[in-house]
């Protein structure tokens, strides 16, 4: 399936069904990361039950240094 991840078109194996699995796919699972799916911010507790499907738009953000 094709997702838009942070503005880029990315092909993802069909076996990936949830946000948690998507983060594992990108090797991001143990990082402090915030997920927005189709404009909706997902609490961390909802990652494992939040399903992804073709053409979803996913934003992955994190904390960086700043003042």
């Amino acid at each position: 399936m094709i997702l838009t991840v942070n503005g880029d078109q990315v092909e993802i194996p069909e076996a990936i069904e949830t946000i948690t699995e998507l983060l594992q796919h990108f090797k991001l699972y143990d990082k402090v990361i915030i997920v927005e799916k189709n404009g909706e911010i997902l609490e961390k507790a909802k990652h494992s039950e939040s399903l992804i499907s073709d053409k979803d738009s996913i934003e992955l953000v994190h904390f960086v240094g700043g003042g």
Partner: protein
Amino acid sequence: MLKIGNLEFSSRLLLGTGKYPDFDTQKQAVDVSGTEILTFSVRRMNIFEASQPNFLEKLDISKYTLLPNTAGAKTAKEAVRIAKLAKASGLCDMIKVEVIGCEKTLLPDPIETLKASEELLKEGFIVMPYTSDDVLLAKRLEELGCHAVMPGASPIGSGQGIINPLNLSFIIEQATVPVIVDAGIGTPSDAAIAMELGASGVLLNTAVSGAKEPVKMAKAMKLSIEAGRLGYEAGRIPKKRYATASSPMEGMSLS
């Protein structure tokens, strides 16, 4: 004690985490600064470089209160979105509202800052807006219920120090919430002056991270903020036009 909302801090230095030469220097600077509140930003991550270490991984973040900023926002709507993203991390419910209205000066847009603060207060955030040194704007933000106001000393990253101490002192005098002087600090003496004016705290970043020796400057800032606060509490002497002798006048004639 610095009290913000229901939180208490013994350090009055709030330290930014941007632009350190490397993570180890940053960690050491954070350690010696004695800060209890760290600011940082929220950004899209590069998913193709996910293995890059993140600055948070070097710090024991459980030791600090995290104060994400909404830097990058130009409108209230963008600031609210960034604040909500930060909160969804589950690590923080404080937010530094930063809505920049001018690319060249990086001065905040007062109207959008006010709107964003109002919305975020409704959402239950501990709201700390970065503002210009406008006395009435600070008052309006306090009346909304903001938990602190953070007027800039001079433009972000400029190191120009405190260019309008009079306005800052007006803001401080009328404030019912902590006033934290944010942005523009260049030297330890700038930070000390902010504290002598009666500020509850100082937020700085570039003055430390851009110093030739950031760790040493972090220590200097810690000490100057403590000294400035003590001086404020002790109460300075009034300025006089002419001299007043420190030594007694009696018994001067020995002949």
